[in-house]
Every structure is written in C-alpha cells, then in structure tokens.
C-alpha cells in the first residue's frame, strides 16, 4: 500500500470522520505526523486538515526526534519512577 505523509494538528471532533476512515488508511504518530493512504480521498483529507506534506524520511525524522526526546526525559527520571507502568519509549519505523 502506498502512503503519503503530512503533519497536521488534531483539532478534535471531525478531524477525521467514520466515512473518511472507510475510504483510506490513516494513522497518527508522535509529532503530529499522519500517515495517509495514497488515494483521492486521502488527498482530500490532507487538504481538509491543511496538512503540511512531508517525505517519508522527513516524517520519520520528526517521529524519531519526538521519541528520542521522550527517551532522554525517561533516562533523566529517578529510578523509582522507572516503573513497570512507565517503560522506556522505543523508536519505531513508519509504514
């Protein structure tokens, strides 16, 4: 499946609708990065939310930067706050 990548701020209700979720792939990631199915409906949604188009590499860099910042914050925590409910964030690859 082909994807497009953008950044957009989730304003809440109707940012993405049930109908839109049926029409194209959509997943949100740290740094307000969105992975969008590459079809007409996905393009329309990017326009609707005023998404700023990114390359996959640019989008991945934003996500990785957010997670690495979270890792640094986690590393700085006192040991008693590194609990089983608070595992260290893990960098992952966008589809």
């Amino acid at each position, binding site marked *: 499946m082909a994807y497009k990548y953008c950044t957009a701020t989730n304003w*809440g*209700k109707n940012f993405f609708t049930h109908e839109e*979720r049926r029409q194209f792939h959509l*997943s949100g990631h*740290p740094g307000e990065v969105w992975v969008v199915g590459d079809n007409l409906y996905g393009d329309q949604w990017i326009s609707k939310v005023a998404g700023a188009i990114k390359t996959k590499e640019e989008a991945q860099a934003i996500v990785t930067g957010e*997670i690495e910042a979270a890792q640094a914050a986690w590393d700085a925590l006192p040991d008693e706050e590194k609990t089983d409910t608070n595992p260290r964030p*893990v960098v992952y690859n966008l589809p």
Partner: protein
Amino acid sequence: MSEYKGIKGFQVQTRSEDPSPTEAQVGDFYYNSTTGQFKTINEGGAPIGTWASGANLNSTRYAVAGTGASNSAALVFGGYTNGPTGATEQYDGSSWTELNDLNQARGYLDGAGTYTAALAFAGLTPPSPGEGETETWNGSSWTEVNDINNVRYNGGGDGTQTSALFFGGTPNPSPSVLTESWDGTSWTEVNDLNTARQGPGAAGTSNTASLAFGGGYPSNTVNTELWDGSSWTEVNNLNTARRNLGGTGTTTSALAYGGRPPNQSVTESWNGTSWTEVADLALARGDSASAGVALSALMAGGYDGATPFENATEVFSADDFQIKTVTQS
C-alpha cells in the same frame, strides 16, 4: 438459471428509498428507484465499525479511567498530568465539560457505571504503593465510600455503581490474581483469576458477569477469562497481546482496543466465543480511558509512546445492519 422469485418466494422489490433494516430483512435484495441502484441488506455489528475523532479532552492526561453507556455519554476521571489529577470530564458526543474533581487525585484507577451514576476505585498516588479509595459519582460530585480490601492499581474493573468487579493489578501481589466484588456498599474478596495480570482490559455489566482480557507483566498476555459470579474460566485468547488496553461491552459482545507496549491501534471484537480483528484506531496508544459498549465505544487520553499527555478522543461506531450497493466487478 435460478430466479430471485424462485429463491426468496417473491420478485425483487422496488423501493424509492433505503429502509431502516431489521433482522428479518438481512439477505434481502432490492432496487432503489431513486438512485437507480440494486442493494442488499447485510449483517452489521463491530466488523463494519470504524473509529472517528471526537472532541479533545480539556485536561490532557494518561492512566485515566472512564465509564459510560455510549460514545456520546461518557465520564473520564483521574490520571496523570505532571502528577496525579482528580479532574473529571463528561462527554455528550460533541464536547467535554469539566465537572467536580475526585476527592483523591490518582492515576491507574478503574471505573464502572454511567456518567450520572459512576464508581471510581483503586489507583496510584506516588509515593504511596497504591490506593484503596472508592468513590461514587452522582452526576455532579464524588463521595468517598468503603475502600478496596487489597490496595492496588492498574487492574481491571467493570459493572455498575451498585454491582462491580475489580481484578488483577499490582503490587499486591505483582502482578495480581486478586478479585474483589462490590455490592453497592462494600468490597468482598472472591475467587482469583487463573492468570495474574496488570493492566487487563475489562468488559461486563455486573459483579456476576465480567470478561478479563490481555494485561500481564513482564510479558503481555492474550489470555481471556470469563467471570460467572463465582469463578473465572479460561476462554479463547485475544489475537494481539497487550496491556493497559481499552475494553467495553458485555461478556457476549465486547471490544478490546489499543494498549501497549509497543503502542497498539488494534481493535478486536468479542462475540461471546472468540475475538476477531476489526477496524484499527487512528492513534496507537495505551493508558487511555475507555467507555461505552461494543458498538458505541470511546477512547480518550493516554500515552502514544512519546507524548505522555494525550488529549485525543476517538469514538467507535457500528450499525446493526449494513446496506450495500451491488456493483459489477
């Protein structure tokens, strides 16, 4: 060639508009003269459901509890936002409204009931090892009532304000198999889970009918157990192991969604016998509030793997029936 009349006993109906389907109409085939399309009426339910964005919470947080009858009648309370919070918000399908706080600010608590008659129990307020506090919600304020017997947090809970169940969690023991039953006045320890777990999903309507799924620590589990009012029985497993996931519904129609680690967007539907994957969340996350029922669920707040203080809401909706246009392909 067989004719439709020969199979169904009557000719293809012509309708000027689509009907509001009933169970008896499932399988029907008709012609919509207004749109010029042939259509069929199919079963609906969770397999055709999708997640859409709802209004953002006013108070960003994770490790937050939720309860409510649907994705437009929900209550979320507690959690962490740079420390434990008692913030309580009510959702009406359009926006979140801030109401009176919990008396005991805490995260990793559980909830049961509706947005006008709710129950909040257990939780964690560091450096305390866990909270036993139970509070009842009357639609406008929280009142402290009798505590849980075995103090712990990050368990599973469901039911109503007068009939609820709390199971698993940590650290007493860690992870815990303990189960406690609420009768509207006090908690009573009852038979243990078969599999110890923290952060399980929960679905159920009373202290005699509950489903525990997922959870675990240190490894996530797919294990699912059914509570019948006296003991837990192992039933078919989830497809995706996770903990700190969302859960809503009953013991015969439930939804499991989200969770971590790693952060999950997977949603699964329980039909009383087995789990089936349905539409994913858009935002993979755990430690969120969940509310509603299997065909009308809500997930709010949580942790997405980098930002611990999510304010996003997603709502799951599925119709009982589906009208599909017949196309040539």
